[in-house]
């Protein structure tokens, strides 16, 4: 009996080993990768199909904020240009709105702060699994889009950032459903104070129904485009390009 059990143990162990080496080979196969990628689109389509596209992310009372809002990714852009802007307290920082728009914009932080603003206490979910709740203040993106007059051909808003990973600039993109969503904003305040450098000063994207890597920090330019093919590796964002993270980060 024990002999038989031991044999089975060896068999199971060997089987698991085979399964494992097999799994990694399967994981690397292009056909499997494209099939798994399909799953990503099914999930997005299913979400968009059964849920309200305009649904608001939950907003929390101030008392439910995280005691400390964890910064992630780059916490200090490395460029001399950014250091100069930081030293000048972003007095000359400009946000540009370009691409498929009737009236390209170039706005100073002072002009942005003078626009109608929105404050929301929302939850930030990292793709890794943790969450932090914070209060954001900023300009709703749709006000900027209206001011710029978006061409109907535009399908995506691309956010160009001042930070980089080993020389590759950070960027992100969202579709027009999220770009016009009332909670989507370029935030300049966190928890009632100026946005800290670690959290993306002077301006970061908040797109509340998606994961943390979509929340581009140090935003310099919003570009309206009809295709993502011409940016980076063409997958619509830094992490999408370098590590195959899902472009739709609502899951």
């Amino acid at each position, binding site marked *: 009996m024990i002999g038989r059990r031991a044999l089975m143990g060896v068999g199971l162990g060997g089987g698991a080993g085979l399964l494992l080496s097999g799994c990694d080979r399967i994981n690397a196969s292009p056909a499997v990768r494209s099939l798994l990628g399909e799953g990503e689109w099914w999930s997005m389509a299913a979400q968009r199909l059964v849920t309200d596209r305009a649904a608001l992310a939950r907003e929390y009372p101030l008392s439910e904020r995280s005691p400390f809002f964890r910064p992630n990714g780059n916490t200090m852009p490395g460029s001399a240009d950014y250091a100069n802007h930081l030293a000048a307290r972003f007095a000359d920082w400009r946000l540009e709105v370009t691409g498929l728009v009737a009236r390209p914009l170039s706005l100073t932080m002072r002009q942005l702060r003078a626009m109608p603003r929105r404050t929301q206490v929302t939850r930030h979910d990292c793709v890794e699994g943790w969450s932090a709740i914070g209060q954001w203040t900023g300009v709703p993106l749709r006000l900027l889009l209206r001011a710029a007059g978006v061409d109907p051909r535009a399908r995506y808003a691309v956010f160009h950032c001042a930070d980089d990973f080993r020389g590759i600039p950070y960027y992100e993109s969202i579709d027009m459903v999220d770009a016009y969503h009332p909670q989507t904003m370029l935030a300049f305040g966190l928890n009632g104070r100026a946005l800290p450098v670690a959290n993306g000063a002077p301006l970061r994207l908040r797109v509340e*129904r998606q994961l943390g890597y979509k929340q581009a920090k140090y935003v310099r330019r919003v570009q309206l485009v009809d295709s993502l093919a011409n940016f980076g590796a063409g997958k619509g964002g830094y992490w999408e390009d370098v590590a195959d993270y899902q472009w739709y980060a609502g899951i």
Partner: protein
Amino acid sequence: MNAVSVVVLLMSGLMIFNAHPRLYWGKYGANWDAAWLQIGSRGQSGYLRVGGFEVPTTGVVGYANGQGYAFPSWMTIPSSYNLADAREWHFFFAWGLVVPGIAYWFWSIARGHLRRDLVPSRNEMTPRNLWRDVKRHARLRFHEGDPAGEGARRYNVLQKLSYLGVIFLALPLAALTGMTMSPGINAAWPWLLDLFGGRQSARSLHFIAAAALALFILIHLAMVVLAGPWNELRSIVTGWYRVPRDPATGERT
């Protein structure tokens, strides 16, 4: 399909857990907040901490085979750290569980499988019968001496309860808490957040449901392995002697 999906989901889920091997209760939770469960490593020793208790787990979880990941590579899909790929596998095979799972639900209710084979009768649920079944299982005699005389072709009461627990508790809990972790779903169906007490609570419950499923699968496999050879052996033995060995004493009764 369901079994394959569950195994892929468990293994890719462990990889996703590795990205942030801490669990919290409530709406938020990150590194500066108190975790109720944590798997980690210090130098070359792994540990598991639950509440205030910490156990060394070097070689099993936390630190194994020279790597400081929460769950070692042989347990995860893919085997080397890759959160993006693990998410692709997890979300793809989630369809493979949820779609047939819902179909099975309807089938088992509509065709009476649930009522006929799975829901225990009042007789079976008496403390006396439950205790007898527990004793039978403890002695690894899964099919013997069924009090209702139904024999081995039917499920016994512990089997029924654990199947019901998996099909109608653990699996739906895993699916719903999984959906509760999606910020997109949260916006559309915020009642899920209220149901589970916040996203981080949902993440903890998701892990607990997965652990229960893993435990069920391991016990189930072990019992099949134990019951199979046992039956064979007994039939050989009783074929000649008509009496089984008593597993407690090893003597013929």
